[in-house]
């Protein structure tokens, strides 16, 4: 297991697209180092013969009939949009 000190909150916040203030970055750096230190106990466990469990109740290939059914109108889908026009979501410019 990696060392707790490997955590670079500033770098991870960029991966997460989540701006943090300098104060938050410093605070989380310390608090999460404590959490990671606590979690080091997981290294004690012998997991060499264990399969990873993504779910406690694994279910695979769940299908339902592919039939149309009533769902949102365009107005309903757009009802919470922070910025909309002409029945479209308006997004921040992504090309130069």
């Amino acid at each position, binding site marked *: 297991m990696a060392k707790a000190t490997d955590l670079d909150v500033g770098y991870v916040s960029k991966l997460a697209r989540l701006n943090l203030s300098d104060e938050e970055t410093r605070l989380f750096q310390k*608090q999460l180092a404590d959490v990671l230190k606590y979690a080091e106990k997981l290294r004690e466990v012998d997991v060499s013969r264990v399969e990873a469990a993504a779910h406690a109740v694994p279910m695979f290939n769940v299908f339902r009939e592919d039939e149309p059914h009533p769902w949102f109108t365009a107005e309903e889908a757009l009802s919470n949009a*922070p910025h909309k026009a002409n029945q479209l979501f308006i997004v921040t410019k992504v090309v130069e």
Partner: protein
Amino acid sequence: MSRADLPALTIADLQSRLRRKEISPRNVLESVRARIDAVESKIDAYLSIDFEAALKEAEKADVDLPLGGVPIAVKDIINVIGQPCTCGSKILGNYRSPYDATVIKKLRAAGAIPFGKTNMDEFAMGSSTENSSVKVTRNPWDLSRVPGGSSGGSAAAVAADAAFGGLGTDTGGSIRQPASLCGIVGVKPSYGRVSRFGVTAFASSLDQVGPLTKTVRDSAMIMNAMAGHDPYDSTSLPDAVPDYTKNLGRDLKGMRLGLPKEYMIEGIDLQVRSAVDAAIKQLQSLGAEIVDVTLPHTDYGIAVYYFLATAEASANLARFDGVRYGYRAKDPKDLLDHYGRTRGEGFGQEVKRRIILGTYVLSSGYYDAYYVRAQKVRELIRQDFVKAFEKVDAIVSPTSPVPAFKLGERTADPLAMYLADVFTNTGNLAGICGISVPCGLAKVNGSQLPIGLQVLGKSLDEARIFQIANAYEQSTDWHKQRPKI
């Protein structure tokens, strides 16, 4: 009975009075409204209430339906059409649900009236409801203390008779722990038993919706209406739903109950310990046999939980990008600025902390060491329960190691807050069902603070834990104790 006494009724009592036409659904709703007006300024349990819409439904309520005319409070993470659904977050401050969650559809079909949305830790991340971005809910038993969390609003409302029953969600203990701290009943159904469609996802492999009520029977009634397969939730189980009230009133002869030695840890409050010891003696006197069991990986639960839950949350909360709904930062200079500031300004501190931890454990170079290893230990925790349930029918323990703590007492130390879920989170990791039922009152600095007994059952064995909790409850007076507020 006077109108003012109505809100103290259980759902079962309320239903029989409605059916005898002693009261009308309108009377019921108005009595709840009056009670909320009297106590809400003290407990701050609700984020929004729509009595006008609820009154319209009350006028046409069919009291012969299983929950006909019964008003239900709903944690503000479950979509109710036309109502806000803030998840306790600024980022969804202006959001209004364009649809009903499946659980709401099912409850409406059973005649229930969802009338108000209750406070919660932001995106259900917390154990005290102090992480709400809107306001702090207080425990009706002692207004200087937390109601527990994250479903603290529903728990406080039911405990203060400001709701007949409420809905919560439980990812690591978020129904059972506040139920315990507020002296009411709370149920986490087996994973897959109740649809998650329309419930804002926190950790998708752990989240379940469940009831918070004054009695075990009331919870069983709500589960009868709410459980079952949903084609809109691919993790929903196809198994038929039994009548959860069918075993109520039976004794416990021949029932084998496991007592895990790992749960009597250091740091458990002495009054909690003696209340649970007394409850175990009571269960024996009802015919149950107590068997020592071992759940050897219990001590790793919190570490596993905080890696898996934060990893899943970091992915689930990526949807909050300020495009289709929710808050958007002003005048972004480019897309990265748009995302970074929208999320940085919109999320509260605990949510940000967990997104960072979750992103870290999923990031390149750490994924195997943290995330995959945690999944493997999760499997060992699940196997602990499988082995224990070969010997016993259910497992009993305290719900929370301590009674309600003071507001502000744990907010500076996230790890101390995380440890509040030490007895509950393994049930989510294993996908099993659990219930908390009142089993005592601790005396702390002149206050009386409720203590909860947890009963854990096998996956899909809800009927049995309802039977055990009901037999215990009806043989004691703890469920009749109400806060003086």
